[in-house]
C-alpha cells in the first residue's frame, strides 16, 4: 500500500465543495471526467482520463462517499483499466482560509494487476499526479 498526502487552496468554500457530493451533474463539468452517473448503490461512476500522462490512460471510476461534513470527507475510490485495479481510500480535510478553503488530502492506495507489476517504479508519482489533478479540477467546478 502506498500512502500519499497533498494539499492545495481553492476559492470555493466547504459548502460548495460538499455540494458536489449532491449530484453527478456538477461533476460532469470536470474536464477529465466523462459519463458521470450514479449507480444503484449510490456511488458515482465515471470514466476518468488523467491529463498528466503522455498517453491516454482512461480508468473506469467508482466513487463512494463514506462520510462528508463541513470539515472533511472520506471516499472509497476504485479505478480499473484493463487488468489493472487501483483502490484508494481518500480522506479530505477542509479548512477555511482567507481566500476560500485549504483542502488537505491523504490517500491509502493499493495498485493491483498489470499496473502493479509494470508500473512499480512510476505508479506512486502517477497516482499522486492523478489524485492531485482530479481534486483540483473538482474543486474548481465547485
Amino acid at each position, binding site marked *: 500500500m502506498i500512502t500519499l498526502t497533498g494539499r492545495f487552496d481553492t476559492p470555493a468554500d466547504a459548502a460548495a465543495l460538499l455540494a458536489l457530493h449532491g449530484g453527478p451533474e456538477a461533476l460532469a463539468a470536470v474536464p477529465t471526467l466523462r459519463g458521470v452517473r450514479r449507480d444503484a448503490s449510490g456511488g458515482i461512476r465515471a470514466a476518468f482520463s488523467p491529463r498528466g500522462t503522455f498517453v491516454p490512460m482512461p480508468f473506469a471510476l467508482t466513487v463512494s462517499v463514506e462520510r462528508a461534513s463541513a470539515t472533511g470527507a472520506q471516499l472509497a475510490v476504485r479505478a480499473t483499466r484493463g487488468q*489493472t485495479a487501483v483502490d484508494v481510500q481518500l480522506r479530505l480535510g477542509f479548512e477555511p482560509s482567507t481566500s476560500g478553503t485549504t483542502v488537505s488530502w491523504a490517500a491509502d492506495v493499493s495498485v493491483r494487476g498489470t499496473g502493479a507489476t509494470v508500473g512499480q517504479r512510476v505508479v506512486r*508519482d502517477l497516482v499522486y499526479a492523478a489524485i492531485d489533478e482530479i481534486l483540483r479540477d473538482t474543486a474548481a467546478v465547485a
Partner: protein
Amino acid sequence: MLLPPLRYLRPETPGDAAALLSEMDGSVVLAGGQTLLNMLKLDLARPAALVDVHRISALRDIRHREDGTLIIGAAVTYSALAGSSETRRTHPAVADMAASLVDRQVRNRGTIGGNCCLNDPANNFPPLLAALDARFRVLGTDGERVLRADEFFVGTLATGLRRGELLVAVEVPAMPPGSVVAHEHLQVGADSWAIARAVVRLDRDGTGGTGEGFVTDARAVLGAVYGSPLRLHSVERSLSSARVSPGLADAATALREVDVRPTEDVHCSTAYRLEMAEVQLRRALRAAVEGSIR
C-alpha cells in the same frame, strides 16, 4: 500481446503531424514504438490513434549548426546516432550512449525523441541531455517553441509538451573545449535495467594541454533514482570555480539534502538505490576529474 483498437496515421511532415495531434483527441506520437507499443500490449494505455513520425525525413536529420550545436531530429534512431561520425567527433557522450542502449534490434527502431518524450525514470538520454544543457524544439499548431531540459523533463513519464505538440529536435550545444562528460550506472545484470545512473559534466578553463585548471561550469544529474532527471545544484555549486584536482571528486556527496523520494521496484530498496546513486555520482565525478586532468 495484442493492441487495443486504434487508428494508425502516417503524416508526411512535422506540421501535418502536429495538426493531427491537436485535431484528434487521444492521439499520440508513435516514434520508434519500442516502449509505447509494449504499454499498449499490456493494456496500460489507450490512445485513440498513433501518429507515426518515424519516417518524416525532417525529423531524421542529424546536423550541426555553425555555432557547433548538434541538432538531432526527434525521430533519429539510436543506431543512426551511434553511427554518426560527426556526432562521435563533437559529442562523443551522445554517440556512446546511443551505441550502448538496450540491444541492436531496439537501437534500430528506438528514437531519441521517444526516449525523451516518455521520460521513464530508467531512460538513458534524459539525464545525459540535462547535463549537456540540451534544448528541446517543439512544434505546435501555433508555431515552435524551445524548452530547456528542466522545462522539458518535468516528472515521472511527464514532459513539458502540451497536448498537440510534437518534439521535432533535440539541440545539444557545442561542448566547450576541455569539457568532459562522464556517465556511470549500476544495472541489473551486466547491461539491463538501470538501478542508478549519474552523469557529470565538467567544463574547465585552460583549454590546451594537460594539467590542472579551474572548473568553470559543472552539471551533475541523476537518472533512474527519481521520477525524472534530477540536477544536483548543490553538487554543481561545490564544483564550480574549484580547482581541478584528484580530490575534487570526493568533495561532493550532497545527495542527502535532496528531498525527493527515490523510485522503488523489485530490484532493490529505496535506501540501496539512494546509496548507489551516491556511488555512481562519485564514480562519475572521479571519471570526469580524471578526464579533465588527462
